[in-house]
């Protein structure tokens, strides 16, 4: 298979899957008596229709890019880490709780410090899963999942207990961050700098994987750990480093959620962004650059969800149904890889008398 075919498939398959999911979703809501055409229109308008929707979409896409990296980077090193949600939460917790221990200087330096703490916390969280896998033989998928549940409960404990701001009555929260540490908007737009961080992280990850020796070595380990061992690559170190980088991205997402959106850690941070990130990463085939458009697309669906709820009275879970369809179909579409080459396409358009030889 040549590279043109590969690129063509990498583009076509997720696209077909998303179109298929939209059709399925249309049928699904049509069964409940909604007008499918109207739903599709609103999905598009709510995601990309006007400046307001587009900004909303980008806001929701930003954390998805970072949590997707938490799946993608370890995946390139051969690990299936699904604990991005946990890394995001410990990152958010770190960002909100550092001022309890030590007052960082006000201004951007303080913000940088808070974000560094978030990234470090997330990195440590996922690195633990990587360490356990490499040195103790514990399956990283299971351990990262367990760590996520531990993170959720520790998060709730701290937010509703020791770190609770006594004045947060209805919704237990930590103390709000100082105004000077908040992450502002980009220029006059209603989009905060988290988007730049998200895109920047994806680009940096892509450069690391494809242009640096370290990234190349990581991909070798992910492709064939035995071969990597034979050429003397330090597989354990490389794998744990990939976990660190992925975890740092998800932790950063948590920090940005606090510094740019919520101001304080509370239950709103637990929104499943880590799990949606898994979906984004699989749809992008764990390729950092492909994560950017897919995160924007799925962020658009999420943004349109509230529109569907407001205009048509669809339940708020309808977006979750749509994302479920998208995820199932994107994964299923993997099975068609290698069968959608140019030759097959040509064979479809101009049926020939040649038998399809060699198909077992």
């Amino acid at each position, binding site marked *: 298979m040549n590279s043109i075919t590969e690129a063509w498939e990498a583009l076509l398959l997720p696209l077909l899957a998303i179109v298929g999911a939209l059709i399925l979703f249309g049928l699904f809501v049509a069964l409940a008596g909604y007008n499918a055409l109207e739903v599709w229109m609103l999905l598009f308008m709510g995601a990309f229709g006007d400046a307001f929707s587009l900004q909303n979409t980008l806001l929701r896409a930003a954390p998805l890019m970072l949590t997707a990296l938490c799946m993608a980077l370890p995946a390139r090193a051969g690990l299936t880490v699904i604990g991005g949600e946990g890394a995001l939460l410990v990152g958010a917790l770190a960002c909100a709780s550092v001022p309890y221990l030590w007052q960082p200087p006000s201004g951007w330096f303080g913000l940088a410090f808070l974000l560094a703490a978030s990234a470090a916390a997330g990195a440590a969280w996922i690195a633990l899963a990587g360490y356990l896998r490499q040195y103790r033989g514990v399956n990283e998928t299971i351990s990262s999942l367990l760590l996520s*549940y531990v993170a959720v409960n520790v998060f709730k404990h701290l937010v509703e207990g020791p770190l609770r701001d006594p004045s947060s009555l209805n919704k237990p929260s930590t103390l709000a961050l100082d105004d000077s540490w908040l992450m502002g908007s980009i220029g006059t737009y209603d989009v905060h700098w988290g988007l730049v961080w998200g895109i920047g992280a994806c680009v940096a990850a892509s450069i690391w994987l494809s242009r640096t020796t370290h990234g190349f070595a990581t991909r070798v380990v992910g492709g064939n750990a035995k071969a990597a061992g034979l050429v003397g690559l330090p597989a354990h170190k490389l794998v744990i480093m990939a976990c660190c980088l992925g975890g740092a991205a998800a932790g950063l997402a948590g920090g940005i959620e606090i510094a740019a959106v919520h101001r304080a850690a509370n239950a709103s941070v637990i929104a499943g962004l880590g799990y949606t990130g898994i979906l984004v990463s699989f749809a992008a085939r764990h390729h950092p650059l492909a994560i950017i458009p897919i995160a924007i697309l799925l962020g658009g669906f999420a943004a349109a969800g509230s529109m569907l709820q407001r205009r048509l009275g669809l339940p708020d879970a309808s977006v979750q149904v749509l994302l479920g369809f998208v995820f199932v179909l994107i994964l299923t579409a993997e099975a068609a890889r290698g069968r959608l080459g140019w030759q097959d396409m040509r064979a479809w358009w101009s049926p020939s008398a040649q038998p399809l030889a060699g198909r077992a």
Partner: protein
Amino acid sequence: MDIDAISSVVLAILAGAIRVGTPFLFVSLGECLTEKAGRINLGLEGVLVISAMSSFGVSYLSGSAWAGVLAGAGSGALLALLHGLASSLRRVNDIAMGVAIMMLGIGLAFYLGKPLIQPQAPTLGSWSLGFWSDSPQLRSALEINALFPLGVALAFLMSWAFANTRWGLLVRMVGDSSDAARALGTSVTLVRTLATTAGGAIAGLGGASLSLYYPGSWNEGLSSGQGLIAVALVIFARWRPVACLGAALLFGGAGALGPALQSVGITGYYYLFNAVPYALTLLILVLTCSPHRVLRGAPAELGVGR
């Protein structure tokens, strides 16, 4: 804390072990069957939530809790069938597909279950096994969910079937060596898909026990990850159905610890106690796994035993 408080906490944990452990029991048995055939179904979380919703809905509409139980098993089987079929395709990752099925199942359940949050549905009765005792606490501790004995029977039945029946051996063969199965002319795909579907039906009973017995209502926070924890439970139980029973009771008891302590006035650590089962599982994995050998009892075709 005086002696009365201690005994009430212990009783509450015992009662909770059965009450909270029943869904754990069914999902772990379902996952056990799936994994014995060589696949992991993380989607059991979605199965659990959608079966809880559909059993509650059917119980509410039909007025019969047992019809609800059947609906729970049926809807669970359907969703698991989707996982089984999709994971049978080439290059489809069963773990990722599990996460997809989880999202789809939860989304569908929340979407379809929206009108069911308010109403009351007929719930399953319980067996009062504490009639001989005078202590009201002991009596309430021995109010046994009618599904629990079914789960216990199922655990022993599965254990026997894996060792003694043709189907049990087929499932184990497919899970241990797909090459051997193919050599004998068995369709690996068919057996795995059927095992996944049956596992979904069993897990669906766990969903029914959530919405029809304890807590006995439908809302969006009903499951707190029991379906995902099933994967860890099965590893903990070393893929033995009867050990799944013990593991489920242990996890149920651990889950009841927080509320039990809360009832005697020890509050403030509620969520930390909730985290105990997860941390415990991780600890057990760390202590028992080794990079140099596979886990004892692990089906060879499974990724986790590595």
